[in-house]
């Protein structure tokens, strides 16, 4: 088996057994980057020299028996909105083009401590605002399956890098679907954990109440393994939660579910959905859903049914209100979070801009791209005096209603199953002309952000053009293990099926 064909877990195992050197893995991945990066543009910054230094240290740590974890020696990528000490971190924005953080995000620290080799910072929509990676100041990323198409977004660089084998796994961030949707469009596995599971310290904020860091990986096992490494309470993020200490009936965990809440996600990698109750929102299968995506998703549901799950369709309700509520809340939070980019302490500053106030306005006008400005303006409006109640508070009330319909659904079902996106990846250049249309494509993913719930995207086929289709499994808050178990069962069933077909052929 070629080095690049291994999953992250397989690669680390072989490295720890001494069959592959960390340097060989790194060489293989950089050779692949040399071959494909020019065409795909997954990375904003490659960390070649730094990676070689890391590799030596990590190899030594493995040889000495100090690094024994399941990611030791594995080359991984990090989305460019997570701070990396001494390595520039741009958010794919002109305003941060030359910003070099003095510290690393907790998620990055955890990857490093686990012995992963961080090889580069991946391209994204500017400040994670976009669904195609086309709003990046540094240019678009192309879909590895078909370079005429976008990789999805905003973690498009991370998804494309995993799909193109330009890394073995990557971190993304998901505010409205930004891990799950590019995973779907690039044919990899992507997961957004429950809000608070992964520390947001060092993640440059977009919508603080919605943002979560999550893994993009080659399979469900890699995904669970990485999440297990990332998860945990962090004093540096007061919204992070200690899942090990949760009290049933309190803290957002329902009674009797405490055992599910811990961080030992790999324990859920079991082929067993016997008796699992899976609901498919009928509202997710209606107008606007591409027929090929619909068929692939329903076929996947059948597979889980054949494996013993109880699968039925139901009416979720309020689906169309999630997008307007989301864009109101996310824009409001973005307008506040992005106030810090003022040209004083770091980042771009407009030249000869006049007095302080004029400098702020010119710096931000020149430093931010069109989509970021659009959201800052909308956010400033919905928070402004006279409109705050009618827009911002209204959206927060609707969020409460949406949470309620999901609570009702999870009283009946263990898992909600549906598509990740209404279509496969759009063509390059098709989405930016009509922002509202682009926002509408987030319809199946944003509810998980509004309600804090975990969601995973697993490949479930491809369309006629050869573009991947993703299956989404959503769980109740802190029920990652249920969706991981369903995702793993599905993945294994598909693998077995493909294996037997190859055998016949």
């Amino acid at each position: 088996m070629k080095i690049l064909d291994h999953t992250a877990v397989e690669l680390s195992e072989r490295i720890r057994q001494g069959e592959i050197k960390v340097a060989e893995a790194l060489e293989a991945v950089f050779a692949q980057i040399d071959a494909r990066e020019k065409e795909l543009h997954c990375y904003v910054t490659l960390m070649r020299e730094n990676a070689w230094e890391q590799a030596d240290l990590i190899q030594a740590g493995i040889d000495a028996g100090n690094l024994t974890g399941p990611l030791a020696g594995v080359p991984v990528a990090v989305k460019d909105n997570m701070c990396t000490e001494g390595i520039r971190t741009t958010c794919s924005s002109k305003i941060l083009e030359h910003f070099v953080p003095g510290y690393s995000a907790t998620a990055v620290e955890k990857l490093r401590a686990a012995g992963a080799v961080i090889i580069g910072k991946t391209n994204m929509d500017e400040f994670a605002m976009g669904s195609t990676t086309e709003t990046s100041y540094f240019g678009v990323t192309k879909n590895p399956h078909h370079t005429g198409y976008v990789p999805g977004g905003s973690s498009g660089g991370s998804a494309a890098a995993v799909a193109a084998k330009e890394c073995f796994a990557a971190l993304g961030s998901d505010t409205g679907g930004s891990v799950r949707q590019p995973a779907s469009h690039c044919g990899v596995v992507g997961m957004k954990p429950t809000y608070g599971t992964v520390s947001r310290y060092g993640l440059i904020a977009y919508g603080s109440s919605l943002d979560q860091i999550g893994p993009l990986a080659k399979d469900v096992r890699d995904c669970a393994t990485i999440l297990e490494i990332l998860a945990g309470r962090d004093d540096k993020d007061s919204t992070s939660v200690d899942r090990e200490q949760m009290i049933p009936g309190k803290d957002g965990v329902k009674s009797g579910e405490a055992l599910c809440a811990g961080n030992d996600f790999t324990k859920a990698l079991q082929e067993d959905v016997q008796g699992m109750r899976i609901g498919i929102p009928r509202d997710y299968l209606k107008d606007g859903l591409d027929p090929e995506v619909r068929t692939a998703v329903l076929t996947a549901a059948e597979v889980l049914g054949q494996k013993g799950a109880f699968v039925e369709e139901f009416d979720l309700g309020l689906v169309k209100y999630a997008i307007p509520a989301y864009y109101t809340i996310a824009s409001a939070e973005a307008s506040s979070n992005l106030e810090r980019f003022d040209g004083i302490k770091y980042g771009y500053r407009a030249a000869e801009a006049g007095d302080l106030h004029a400098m702020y306005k010119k710096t931000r006008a020149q430093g931010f791209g069109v989509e970021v400005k659009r959201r800052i303006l909308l956010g400033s409006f919905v928070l402004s005096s006279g409109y705050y109640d009618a827009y911002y508070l209204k959206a927060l009330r609707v969020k409460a209603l949406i949470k309620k319909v999901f609570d009702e659904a999870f009283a009946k079902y263990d898992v909600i199953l549906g598509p990740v996106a209404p279509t496969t990846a759009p063509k390059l250049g098709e989405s930016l002309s009509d922002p509202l249309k682009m926002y509408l494509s987030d319809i199946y993913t944003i509810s998980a952000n509004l309600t804090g719930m975990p969601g995973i995207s697993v490949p479930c086929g491809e369309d006629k053009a050869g573009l991947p289709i993703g299956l989404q499994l959503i769980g109740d808050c802190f029920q990652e293990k249920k969706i991981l178990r369903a995702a793993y069962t599905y993945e294994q069933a598909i693998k077995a099926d493909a294996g037997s077909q190859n055998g016949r052929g």
Partner: protein
Amino acid sequence: MKVIDDAVIENVSILAKLELSEDEKVQAKLDMEKMLEYIDQLDELDTEGIEPVIHIFPMENVFREDVVTNGDMREMILANAPEEKSGMFVVPQTFA
């Protein structure tokens, strides 16, 4: 439909600290009207008596001792400054 007039755009651009060209103002007006018209769908829902939810999980203030954990990062921080002089950030004139 909400009509966004020039005064609203002017006010919002001040709040957002964004200088907008005349063309950008026209575009911002169109974009915002279209988006707000879409957001107005939320008015179809009766939210009387529903408490606004900011955080999904019950959260309280968490107090802890203020302990210094990081070392001296002065050089690193100043290295990012657009303009620096004698270990300080340089800002444009703040009042005339």
